Structures are given as structure tokens and as C-alpha cells.
């Protein structure tokens, strides 16, 4: 069966510091991969999606970036965090059939 992992689970970082969040999927090949941010009361905001290695599409201009160095690995990064980057970050995967499966999330607090 397929599983999706995210780490770290929680992270507290100062403003201006770099960020790297990792997501890996097991038990499937060539998945679509997604990064979402969830802020209180604002639902889910799609940040990036990827349909293959090295293929990244950005939905929202911001100081975040994403990379997909391997088929089942998706990384969210920032060179300098802002206070507004605080939130709950969710990674998800899907086959071509549209239903998405979510990881456990990373709680990021920028201080």
C-alpha cells in the first residue's frame, strides 16, 4: 500500500532563516505531488505541484520554491523565511485519477 511521509513534524525558525521541508511517497511510481499551506480559517492554498522529476509548477508567487530531485521525493524550500510563512504545510500525492492522499503535515512557526 502507499504511504506518504513528511518531516519534520514541527519546526520553529527565526525570520530570515532558510527552510527545507521534505515529503516522500512509498508504494507508487510517477505520482503527481503537491504542496499546500493551511493557515487558520483560510482553507488549503496550493503552492506547488509536480507531474514528474524536475517538473514544478507554481500556483502562487512567493519566497518559497519546490524541487523534485527523485520520483517520490518533493522538497519545499525558502532562502529567507518571513513571518507570513508560518502555517501548516501539507504534502499530497495522486495518481492520474485525481483523488489526492495527504501526509501528516509540518507545523512551521516563524518567530
Amino acid at each position, binding site marked *: 500500500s502507499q504511504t506518504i511521509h513528511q518531516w519534520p513534524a514541527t519546526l520553529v525558525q527565526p525570520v530570515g532563516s532558510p527552510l527545507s521541508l521534505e515529503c516522500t511517497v512509498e508504494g507508487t511510481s510517477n505520482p503527481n505531488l503537491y504542496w499546500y499551506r493551511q493557515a487558520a480559517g483560510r482553507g488549503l492554498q496550493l503552492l506547488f505541484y509536480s507531474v514528474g522529476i524536475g517538473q514544478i509548477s507554481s500556483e502562487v508567487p512567493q519566497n518559497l520554491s519546490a524541487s523534485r530531485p527523485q520520483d517520490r521525493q518533493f522538497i519545499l524550500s525558502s532562502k529567507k523565511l518571513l513571518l507570513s510563512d508560518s502555517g501548516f504545510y501539507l504534502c*499530497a500525492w*495522486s495518481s492520474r485519477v*485525481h483523488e489526492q492522499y*495527504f501526509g*501528516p503535515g509540518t*507545523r512551521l512557526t516563524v518567530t
Partner: protein
Amino acid sequence: AQSVTQPDIHITVSEGASLELRCNYSYGATPYLFWYVQSPGQGLQLLLKYFSGDTLVQGIKGFEAEFKRSQSSFNLRKPSVHWSDAAEYFCAVGARLEGSQGNLIFGKGTKLSVKP
């Protein structure tokens, strides 16, 4: 533009009572439809999905949803709520387009509280 509306931000029901969470969508054609549930501090779990066929779909945890094309709605129901159902519920739609990236549009969620 495509959109999903969940008109109720917060609903409180008594344990054992029935539940209906509303979802309306704006889309050019019949999309794929989903309901997800999220417990505090957790990821989203897929409850059920509608692709085609029978407009009443059954999901996990005793939930069901009915697709009504004429009302552009996909409401979630449960006949008897349990305390463990307290969570946030998200409705989502996806495009039936050839070559679609599989992106989903989510509603802002409905938080369900359950009174003992």
C-alpha cells in the same frame, strides 16, 4: 472561475443526531467531487468521492454524500454522529479534463463540534 463554497463555517450537533454538511460548486461541467476530513494537527483523510454513476455515494466512517447536478451541490451526511466525528470537513472538486494535472479546488472547510 471554478469555486467551492461551504456556507457553514462551524456546526455543532449533539451526539447521535443526524448531520448534513453543505457544499456547492461553480464549474463549467460536472467535476470530480470529494469530501475530506481533518482532525486537529493531522493531514486530510479522504472520506468519499464521486466520479460518475450513482449520485449517492458511500464513504468510510458511515458517511455518505449525494451529488445533485441541478443544484451544483454535493452535501455530506451521516445519520448518527459520534463524538469522534468532531473535526474539520473539506469539500473539493477536480477537473474532468484530458491532460488535467489533477489539481483540486478546496472549500474553506466546516468545523464540526459534537455535544455529548
